[in-house]
């Protein structure tokens, strides 16, 4: 006997059997529908039982009424509840490869939609709102239960499984310019900036204000031109990178030296919040409040409209992701004999390897649904695949379309008819929050690190792309010695250093006396040499551990 009654163990409800028949009778079903009874009634009456994983080992569960046999002890409440949220979130998941479900779930997490209806009052660090979100034409019980109907996260797009002059190789997708212009996938990106009037020991405090030109680190009048009198930016102002959003002055970082004139004018330092590099937008909302510590805080929300462009990412609920590679004018897109131009061209090679048959089923079903004006249900195991295709096929036929969803297409560029038919349908596509406009970064010149004098790293610091060890090895292997020198020295931490001819130590050039000096031997016979700053640092570090490297030079 093994009794397991741990707190928090996972249990799942099952319908009990009686005399080879389900205890959940049609009468009870009717009562449940009319809300005469509820789920807990069924549990109390012993019609539904909760089993945990270990109890499941000793029962025989029928998936539905049709599968009940002599030895059956329990029946599933609904076959779909054997899956978790991940699988149940997509439609027709039972037709897809199991490994794709986590991928699809991941894409759903990244989708832009209507994440909250009070988004206008919120100051999230980052948020994305789709302009025209739609309900999917195919949904599921889980979809409705989760309340996703109130938070749609995509749009129904007309998709043709077609190539387009090599522009949608691999996972790239081609978009219709006219559809984009009409608002397809258009969204708003919000970013909030926050700042606080900090208090410092000694009674000093930050102040929201227009920084005076005398402030340390003042960046020029143009930066602060959009700030209001209170030092905080006005709503609906267009801002670009580097513009101040909240003007703030702070006390100096280090304690001031006492001047002989007593306490003069207090020095301040500019500590304003600026818009992130590479971004632009409009001030959406400004909020001024107080913290618990009675210091003022200001929050500024910047809005920018993100129109789908080349490089933006989209994904269906069937784990089919794609990046826009081309936005084609409507007249150049393929069109059907009915004059329908797809919103999106998807390369069919993405389908066979990933085995996402649900994607094709959704295309067919949503196409039939859009013709008939009806939504279909894609809950797992609620349908029979062959029956579905027949059902959708008959609807399509009824409206004069090919029953398998294929369409005759004409090339928009040449006007010629394509030899084959192209499978076309409607798919619910999500716009994901990976957008080039937030990622694009270039650098030719820019900031360097203080310690090493090498270029900075990372987008917020306007950094370069690292030419790492493996890349270095590749150039050595290729024998491109001058290119290698350019990467490692000229475009990195080239430094001009004076080296003593006599003692081989590093000296400096005295611009007052106009002579080079060696502090070690006191000589003045030095040579200006170009070395990497990293090497100079290495020498300094070795000196600090009592090792004196001497550099001997040879003339060319």
């Amino acid at each position, binding site marked *: 006997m093994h009794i397991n009654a741990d707190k928090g163990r996972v249990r799942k409800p099952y319908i009990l059997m009686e005399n080879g028949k389900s205890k959940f009778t049609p009468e009870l079903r009717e009562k449940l529908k009319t809300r005469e009874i509820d789920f807990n009634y069924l549990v109390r009456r012993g019609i539904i039982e909760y089993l945990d994983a270990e109890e499941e080992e000793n029962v025989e569960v029928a998936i539905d009424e049709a599968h009940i046999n002599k030895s059956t002890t329990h029946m599933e409440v609904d076959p779909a509840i054997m899956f978790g949220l991940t699988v149940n979130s997509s439609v027709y998941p039972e037709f897809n490869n199991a490994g794709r479900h986590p991928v699809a779930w991941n894409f759903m997490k990244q989708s832009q939609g209507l994440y909250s209806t009070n988004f206008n009052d919120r100051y999230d660090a980052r948020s994305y709102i789709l302009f025209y979100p739609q309900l999917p034409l195919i949904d599921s019980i889980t979809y409705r239960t989760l309340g996703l109907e109130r938070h749609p996260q995509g749009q129904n797009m007309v998709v043709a499984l077609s190539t387009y002059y090599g522009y949608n190789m691999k996972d790239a997708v081609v978009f219709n310019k006219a559809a984009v212009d009409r608002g397809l996938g258009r969204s708003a990106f919000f970013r909030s900036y926050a700042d606080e009037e900090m208090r410092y020991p000694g009674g000093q405090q930050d102040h929201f204000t227009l920084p005076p030109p005398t402030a340390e680190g003042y960046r020029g009048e143009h930066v602060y031109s959009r700030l209001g009198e209170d030092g905080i930016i006005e709503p609906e102002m267009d801002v670009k990178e580097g513009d101040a959003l909240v003007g703030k002055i702070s006390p100096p970082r280090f304690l001031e030296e006492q001047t002989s004139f007593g306490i003069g004018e207090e020095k301040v330092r500019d500590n304003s919040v600026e818009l992130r590099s590479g971004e632009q937008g409009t001030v959406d909302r400004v909020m001024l409040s107080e913290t618990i510590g009675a210091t003022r805080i200001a929050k500024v929300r910047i809005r920018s409209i993100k129109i789908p462009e080349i490089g933006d990412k989209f994904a269906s609920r069937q784990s089919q992701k794609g990046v826009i590679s081309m936005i084609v004018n409507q007249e150049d897109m393929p069109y059907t004999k009915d004059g329908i131009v797809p919103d999106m061209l998807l390369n069919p090679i993405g389908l066979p390897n990933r085995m996402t048959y649900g994607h094709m089923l959704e295309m067919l079903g949503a196409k039939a649904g859009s013709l008939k004006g009806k939504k279909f249900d894609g809950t797992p195991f609620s349908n029979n695949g062959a029956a579905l295709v027949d059902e959708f096929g008959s609807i399509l036929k009824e409206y004069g379309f090919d029953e398998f969803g294929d369409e005759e297409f004409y090339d928009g560029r040449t006007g010629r008819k394509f030899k084959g038919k192209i499978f076309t349908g409607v798919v619910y596509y999500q716009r994901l929050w990976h957008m080039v406009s937030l990622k694009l970064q270039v650098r030719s010149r820019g900031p360097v690190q203080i310690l090493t004098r090498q270029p900075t790293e990372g987008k917020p610091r306007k950094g370069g792309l690292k030419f790492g060890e493996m890349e*270095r*090895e*590749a150039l*050595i*292997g*290729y*024998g*491109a*010695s*001058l290119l*290698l*020198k350019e990467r*490692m*020295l000229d475009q990195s931490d*080239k430094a001009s250093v004076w080296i003593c001819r006599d003692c081989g130590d590093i000296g400096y050039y005295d611009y007052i006396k106009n002579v080079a000096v060696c502090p070690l031997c006191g000589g003045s016979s030095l040579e200006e040499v*170009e*070395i*990497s700053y*990293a*090497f100079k640092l*290495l020498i300094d570090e*070795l000196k600090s*551990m*009592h*090792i*004196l490297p001497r550099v001997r030079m040879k003339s060319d």
Partner: protein
Amino acid sequence: MSAKNEKKFNVVYGEAVGAVAAHSFGEPSTQMVLRTFHSAGIASSVVTGLPRILELVDARKKQQSPLMTIRLDKSYAKNYEKAKQVKAQFEEVLVKSLLENFTEDLKNVTMVLEFDKEKLAQSDLTLKFISGKLQAKFENIDAEQEGHSLKIKYKSKKEMKSARTMFVNMRNFAVKGLQGIKKATVQQDDDGEFYIITSGSNMAGALDIEGVDKEHLYSNDMFDVLKVYGIEAARNMIANELKKTMDEENVSVGFRHIGLLADAMTYGGSIKSAGRHGIAGNKASVFARASYEETVKHFVNASVFGERDPLKGVSENILIGKQINVGTGRIKLAIKKEDLKKVDAEK
């Protein structure tokens, strides 16, 4: 370089052969790591895949599965019974494997070995033979037979420590077969010829056994090969073993790259590993060594011994920011254009 030589080597002057070899080696090896650990279920006593490659490249003294492949002389090769006789001479029989019990008396420097009668019979050995073998191998001992026991007395100085080590060595002594060969099996090839595979390597011993084809003796223990056949043979063995292991994993690497690695490991006359105790640790440049591993150690030693770095290598030149001496950086201007004009004028 003349066109003739260039054809011969098929490598351009200044080509970074080492770096290219490292790339050609390294890239497919990364795939091997992924695969070897996924081929579960295949129980094999022989080390293959990446562990074997590492074993070879690190020049491990004690490798995991040393093997010898012994071809037999013509008169033995077709005869299974004869092959079995040869095989029997390989498998080592240690003294300790025949013992039932033993007692050491270090005070009187004596040891009593009690032998197991059945085990002796199985191995076809007599106590007399064993005592003779032991006396031949170890000096200054007396062996006295008492029933199934052998009483051994250390004759020389009553030194406990040397007696103790000798007693241990004695028990690990192979009375029969070759030292280090744990198992030997007779195999048959496609031509019907018998050959022997041994687990453990002892080439010097194998050469003394009659019926062994001395020209086709193979071992995968590089130090054994080095000891018996010399450095060239060891080089070829390393290269072949690397190639073989790579082929087993379906990784194709050009043999010249493998050969270069084997050359680099052996050109000094001894086998050096590719790591910081071998090739990389013996680089001429302080900076090159310090930029690899154990930075402080190399700088401190260099300062103590007043080392000079002539900046001839690649790594140190990149560090200080000079053009490297490889590829396009290898070619230097012999004469300037203006100087050439002077020479022409003189003519």
